[in-house]
């Protein structure tokens, strides 16, 4: 089944060590998986790594929009899996970054059309050609989630400081392979609300999830603007959020980055969160 993704024989990359395949997942939708994938991928590529972003949200693709590549999508993941296009035909090079590529999802197909075995083989092939394979997982824990996780060896959990997002993230961690050590990005934190006791703090969130903290991203309207324009903030040298994404990329690349600033714990909502998860065995 690997023949489907055969590489050109002259490829000098054939002997490179396999890259890392990381799935970006959350359980709950709308917490920022796609934005995170685009920005972390962009930041990794800016460091010189070869990066491919795989949109695993068959039927509801969006990664192409966030990268501003939607009008360049000719072939997609399912075309490659079904041998209607070669990998090289389907990989779309980013507009800004030479070493960043996108493999788009099919828009008019169903997640059930993806064969888990083929998906695994494809990710394996991509690992031979790229330093990082970032897989943007669909919301939920149905077939699309299972296929997105299938080829990965590592997971980044994106969670917002909301009780429902924490509950869903906790469920997803439980569904990942036991020997994984997923890392956490707390997204859309509003420090002012945390201070007023109206939002969970990073400590509240991670007091439940207990995962290594990879980064904290503040909620800022610029993210919506950047997303609508298809320009990831990770490239914006002046943006604090961009800097936070670059720090995450450095950490993924193995640099010793200081732990993200952790705000004082809130007290207001914590009791509710505690009681919700206290029931577990």
């Amino acid at each position: 089944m690997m023949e489907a993704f055969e590489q050109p024989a002259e490829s000098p990359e054939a002997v490179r060590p396999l890259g890392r395949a990381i799935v970006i997942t959350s359980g709950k939708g709308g917490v920022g998986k796609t934005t995170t994938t685009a920005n972390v991928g962009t930041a990794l590529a800016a460091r010189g790594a070869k990066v491919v972003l795989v949109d695993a949200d068959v039927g509801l693709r969006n990664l192409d929009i966030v990268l501003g590549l939607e009008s360049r999508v000719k072939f997609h993941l399912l075309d490659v899996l079904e041998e209607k296009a070669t990998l090289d035909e389907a990989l779309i090079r980013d507009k800004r970054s030479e070493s960043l590529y996108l493999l788009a999802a099919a828009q008019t197909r169903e997640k059930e059309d993806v064969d888990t075995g083929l998906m695994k083989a494809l990710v394996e092939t991509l690992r031979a050609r790229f330093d990082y394979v970032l897989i943007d997982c669909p919301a939920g824990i149905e077939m699309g989630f299972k296929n997105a996780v299938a080829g990965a060896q590592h997971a980044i959990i994106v969670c917002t400081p909301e009780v429902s997002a924490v509950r869903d993230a906790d469920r997803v961690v439980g569904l990942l392979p036991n020997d994984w050590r997923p890392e956490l990005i707390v997204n859309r934190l509003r420090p002012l609300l945390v201070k007023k006791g109206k939002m969970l703090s990073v400590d509240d969130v991670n007091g439940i999830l207990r995962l290594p903290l990879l980064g904290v991203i503040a909620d800022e309207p610029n993210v919506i603007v950047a997303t609508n324009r298809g320009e990831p903030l990770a490239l914006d040298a002046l943006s604090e959020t961009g800097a936070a994404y670059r720090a995450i990329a450095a950490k993924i690349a193995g640099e010793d980055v200081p732990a993200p600033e952790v705000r004082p714990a809130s007290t207001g909502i914590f009791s509710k969160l505690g009681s919700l998860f206290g029931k577990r065995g």
Partner: protein
Amino acid sequence: MSGRRIVVTSGKGGVGKTTTTVNVGAALAKRGHRVVLVDTDIGLRNLDLVLGVEKRIVFDIVEVIEGRCQLRQALIKDKRFESLSMLPAAQTREKEAVTEEQMKAVIVELAETADFVLIDCPAGIEHGFRSAVAGASEAIVVTTPEVSAIRDADRVVGKLHALRMPMRVIVNRVRPDMVRSGEMMSVDDVCDILSAELLGIVPDDEEVIDTTNRGEPIVLDDSKRLATIYDKIARRLGGELVPFSNLDEPGFFGRLKTLWKVG
């Protein structure tokens, strides 16, 4: 006469389906309608949290379907709104545990003794979506004014059209200042793209985060701006012609004037 069966759906996750279900449902109950909320997000349930009844769950929808309990045993009555109750999803099961036909049977049975059954749909368009829609006779499509949310909503609108299901749109988390500065799509633009009738416009309000975490529907407090907005949505749903005005955000009104043609 049996009640209306309305699925609240979106395609994209995190746009506010559950918050909308709870608040529209509570607003309808406040007006005296008998309302049942159904959480169909099996495996990732959250409606119980947003409604604040998570500690009172004894049975869930899968147990009802598998015949382990009576439907009325699984229903949780809200203590604040007399005519509001909810049917929780199972948390440790898979969506495939329920077929479309089984879901439809439960929803239809609930509608026999309710005026409105609001079905909270999971994100995506997989099996969970199809089951949630199977039980409905009409739909509310929730979207935010973001390109990715609208693209996903458009996919869902297409699927609902194919089923000939009547639908209306709620545009959620509108930030008037960003619309004015051209950084956010206007409600007009959203409705044009989706070519669907508008049911409501809900401004972005950070108070929702807090009330959601606390499990208190925002419509509990009449002084809240969003309480008025959800009440209007409830009235429109009931068939009243309520103009899209009185959004007491200064400046918001002007931008939305053109919307009247939709109302």
